[in-house]
């Protein structure tokens, strides 16, 4: 039982992190039609920014986290201004590849900034744990899950209740029509770029204390995030969250109850099968036609 609980929480923690990365990708796609594969670089950058703020600047951890997220938002704006323009007119897949290359540029920059060795980012909760049904659950895991839940709630509120949200949904539905209706496309794309990379940053700062910081630390979370987005049909947030959590749990329980040596196989096999037999994702997706 206690094993089950422990695995459940570590699965949920991973799921939460995948969710954040994934939602960043989905929002950006909805608002700009860009599938941003540079997200993994941003995850790493966010983590290293927090590290920099907490060690070199000596800020308290929470402040460091917040600073990193804020800076990441600015990075997002910068990206929108610099990188988005040349991509705007390109087909979805060459954009995907260019952004991938961009992601590796971030990795290169991180290596230049804080060379290649692993770093460690502390959690505001250190290594403390709380006992849940006989299982010691790291407070940080709970922290990650809660933060992610809040982020998702805030996002879905923003998307479904605010004017901006409606505008973005309109964009996602029909870009040209939305333009004609005078929706401020440019402003929205700036905002969503900022939002997306801030979320990548958040994911990075939360992932940092879980594992160690390495320049490419964002890569495998991004693969899972894409899986989650696909399972969610690049559509409703609920679907994406469910997809992310599903992948996190599948990895942990697959590893726990079947075989650890093959633990990575399980989530990927799940992705493959879902894409094969439910091509539109488990939860349907409006974006399928265009992707």
């Amino acid at each position: 039982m206690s094993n089950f609980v422990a695995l459940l929480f570590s699965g949920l923690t991973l799921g939460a992190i995948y969710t954040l990365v994934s939602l960043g990708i989905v929002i950006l796609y909805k608002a700009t039609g860009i599938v941003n594969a540079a997200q993994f670089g941003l995850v790493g950058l966010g983590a290293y920014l927090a590290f920099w703020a907490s060690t070199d600047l000596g800020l308290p951890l929470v402040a460091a986290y917040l600073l990193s997220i804020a800076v990441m938002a600015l990075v997002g704006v910068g990206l929108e201004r610099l990188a988005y323009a040349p991509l705007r007119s390109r087909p979805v897949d060459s954009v995907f590849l260019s952004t991938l290359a961009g992601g590796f540029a971030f990795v290169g920059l991180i290596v230049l900034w804080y060379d290649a060795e692993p770093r460690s980012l502390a959690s505001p909760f250190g290594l403390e744990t709380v006992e849940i049904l006989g299982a010691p659950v790291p407070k940080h895991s709970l922290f990650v899950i809660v933060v992610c839940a809040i982020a998702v709630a805030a996002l879905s509120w923003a998307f479904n209740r605010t004017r901006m949200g409606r505008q973005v949904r309109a964009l996602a539905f029909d870009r040209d029509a939305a333009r004609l209706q005078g929706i401020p496309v440019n402003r929205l794309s700036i905002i969503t770029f900022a939002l997306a990379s801030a979320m990548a940053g958040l994911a990075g700062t939360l992932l940092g204390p879980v594992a160690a910081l390495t320049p490419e630390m964002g890569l495998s979370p991004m693969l899972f995030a894409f899986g989650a987005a696909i399972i969610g049909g690049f559509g409703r947030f609920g679907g994406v969250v469910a997809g992310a959590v599903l992948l996190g749990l599948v990895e942990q329980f697959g590893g726990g109850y079947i075989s650890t040596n093959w633990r990575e196989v399980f989530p990927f096999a799940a992705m493959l099968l879902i894409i094969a037999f439910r091509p539109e994702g488990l939860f349907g997706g409006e974006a399928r036609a265009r992707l």
Partner: protein
Amino acid sequence: MADRFANRKRALKAGVGALLSAIVCAACGNGGGTGTAAEGDGANRPLVLGSVFALTGPQSQAPYVNGVRFAVEEINAAGGVNGQKIELKEYDDALNAQKSASAAQLAVSEGVDVVIGGPTAIQTNAAAPIYQRAGVVHLNMASSTAVAKDESFGGDRTFRVVTPMPEQIHAAAEYLIKEVKVKKVGLLGLNTDFGQNALPLYAEKFQAAGVEVIDSKLYPQDAKDLTNELLAMRGADAIVDWGFPNQFALATKTAYQNGMGDIPHLGPSAVGIVNTLGLVPVENRDSLIGMSSCDPAADTRPHVQEWAKRFQARFDAVADASAASGYDAVQLAKAAVEAAGSLDRAKIAEALTTLTLSQNTMCASTYKSDDRHELMHEAVVISYAKGEPKELARYTAAELAGTGRKQG
């Protein structure tokens, strides 16, 4: 694995320069000139020393590079080898087989006499045959491969400077069994050749000594969570964890969180890096034990401590086992050339098989080749309690030599 630049401003300036030089070089076309691969002769020309490690990308092997540079600088400052300054050529093999092959080919074509490199199996598997074919003397740094004389691709020009992994494992097992007196151990390892080669050897040693192996698990290189693996180790009175620094750190934290923070947690030289980089909070390091060829930080020999200080001053980095091995490799090359009295590679190799080196070596106390061209058979067990490296035990060639014979 660890690398540090002296200061970042300079680094960034250099970066701009690098961009320019890159374009220039791309313009000039040729990827590297041909050199004179001089077999034989060696009448008054400098010893051309190749240093082939991963310099770029997320896994960099700078400590080896620095160790080599440091030795070359000191030797040249002291007048060089046979009155000639050493000519050091550095190559990047980016930890991938194809680049390792091309780097090796480049080194060969630029006429290196002795090459130092290949800390991982990927690099060594690709490069060793090339050096062997070209007749270049190869001082190898990979502990986990089979490289040595009369193994599939080694040969009379290939020597290993670091303690073969099987012997390190033998020492580690000995320590846990005899000193810690473990009854039950749990085995963890990285799911690459590094961990995969090690765990079966450990299992073998422990079972032979009647120690129960509770479980043996491999985890992925980008593991973000090791709860599974650690839960499987419950009940062990020691955990062996043969991984790289970041997973080792993750395992340590997870062990602590799951109430296993107090049982010995033994790993490879990566533990030293976990300590120097502070990947684990200092109050959680009491259980950490590192297994290594050596660790200058814990070495009691005065000349080593003094060397470590000089190194720190020169590179703004802690001198670790890798740095020390790199340094010693150069010393070995020097000694061999002097013994050979020429740059004839056959003679250099010949000299390496016979010479005994124990002056100003920073890792081993003595280097002496055995019949399989293994130059080093020493290992140390280090405790990192409170973040202060302390030597718990030292295993000498007498105890280790040959204990890894059938392995590789």
